[in-house]
């Protein structure tokens, strides 16, 4: 039986603005698609682009990164530094052939609950359009399967 494609999108959200916006969408009961999985980080400045590559390697169909608007950073300027890294990352991956629709970056303030929901809706729709992410090798993730647990301390 054919199933509709339900992508998994990993959203890296900063604790102070966008994570709060996502909470606000909740308390305001603004509905959006379930496909997003949030990874909370203290600041968008925490995000090493390697983590984003790993998200794609794990099998995420798309990623979303959102922090405080430029100028609003709880840690003064973390998002400014982040912006350069994220722009470079985005340009690199698009150049490498990854669909732009999978690589989503934005800023969303703690008051923008509605906007957060709209962004998620938009991103999910975009990713659905380009279909499942099949990995850099194009083979999909079915063969990997199982649990890839790294050795513990």
């Amino acid at each position, binding site marked *: 039986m054919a199933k509709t494609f339900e992508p998994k999108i990993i959203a890296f959200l900063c604790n102070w603005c966008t994570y709060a916006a996502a909470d606000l969408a909740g308390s305001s009961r603004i509905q959006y698609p379930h496909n997003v999985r949030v990874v909370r980080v203290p600041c968008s400045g925490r995000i090493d*682009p*390697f983590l984003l*590559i*790993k998200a794609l*390697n794990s099998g995420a169909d798309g990623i979303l990164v959102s922090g405080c608007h*430029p*100028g609003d950073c709880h840690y003064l*300027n973390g998002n*400014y*530094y982040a*912006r*350069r*890294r994220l*722009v*470079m*990352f*985005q*340009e*690199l*991956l*698009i*150049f*490498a*052939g*990854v*669909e*732009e629709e999978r*690589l*989503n*970056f*934005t*800023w969303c303030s703690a008051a923008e609950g509605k906007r957060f929901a709209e*962004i998620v809706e*938009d*991103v999910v729709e975009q990713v659905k359009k380009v279909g499942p992410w099949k*990995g*850099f*090798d*194009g*083979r999909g993730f079915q063969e990997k399967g199982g649990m890839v647990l*790294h*050795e513990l*301390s």
Partner: protein
Amino acid sequence: MNYHKISQEIKDIAFRLLADKEVELVLGFGKEKFSGQSTPLITSSPEKAREMIFDENCAMMLANYLREHAGKKVAIIAKPCETRAIVAYLAEDLLVRDRVTIIGIQGCTGVKDNTACQECTVREPVLADYTVGEPLTDEVEAQDDLSLEEMSPQERLEYFREEFSRCIRCYACREACYACYCPVCFTDSNRPRWVEETLGINENFTFHLMRSLHMAGRCINCGACEVACPEGIDVRALAAKLYRVSRDLYSFEPGMDPEEKTLFATYDSEDPQPRFID
């Protein structure tokens, strides 16, 4: 370029610097005995320094050796791209300026088998204590290779899959790069495991993506990685792309000013974000 004259000037300067004990070591090129190719010649002997040469075969980045000799007073024969590497080291505080004597080669027209030289706009040393050769009188045409940009994303993805499928993970590209100097490379990290050691397109692709991310704002587009690759893979393409992005979006080209902060060490509140969601 008059390689004979340049070689002569290099020999003279190198000899004098060592004879007068102004430096402890000179990094230069010597002739490979059998193949007629060049090889690094690193010496503390003034006599040996007289064997130094320079020609279009001297593709290797001697600047790579500077880090391991950072404690000594060293002189280095530096192509313009290498002077950029040295400047980048200075910007990252990895070298002490007065411990490095730079013998800069002027009027560089490129080395053999390095496609990066066709994209190069820096034909004169950025920083030098001595110069050899003559500066170029005419503008040299430099052209970015944009052929990949013209492909569709899918075509590019296929292209890189094809390229990286040949990668044997010998890390020659890494070793050849002036900017790769982490004490432990992420490829060797177990906790966490950033990339599997095993060969596979996915792993190889991941490795090259991560490597080029480390080059973001640091790659001087010298082409050493490409020259070093035994499989002839287009290993420069990704980092070269980031070189162009950095130049075009942030007007930042690494290795031009030792006082300038590196790309990721600073920001402008008006930095562009061309593809971000509004």
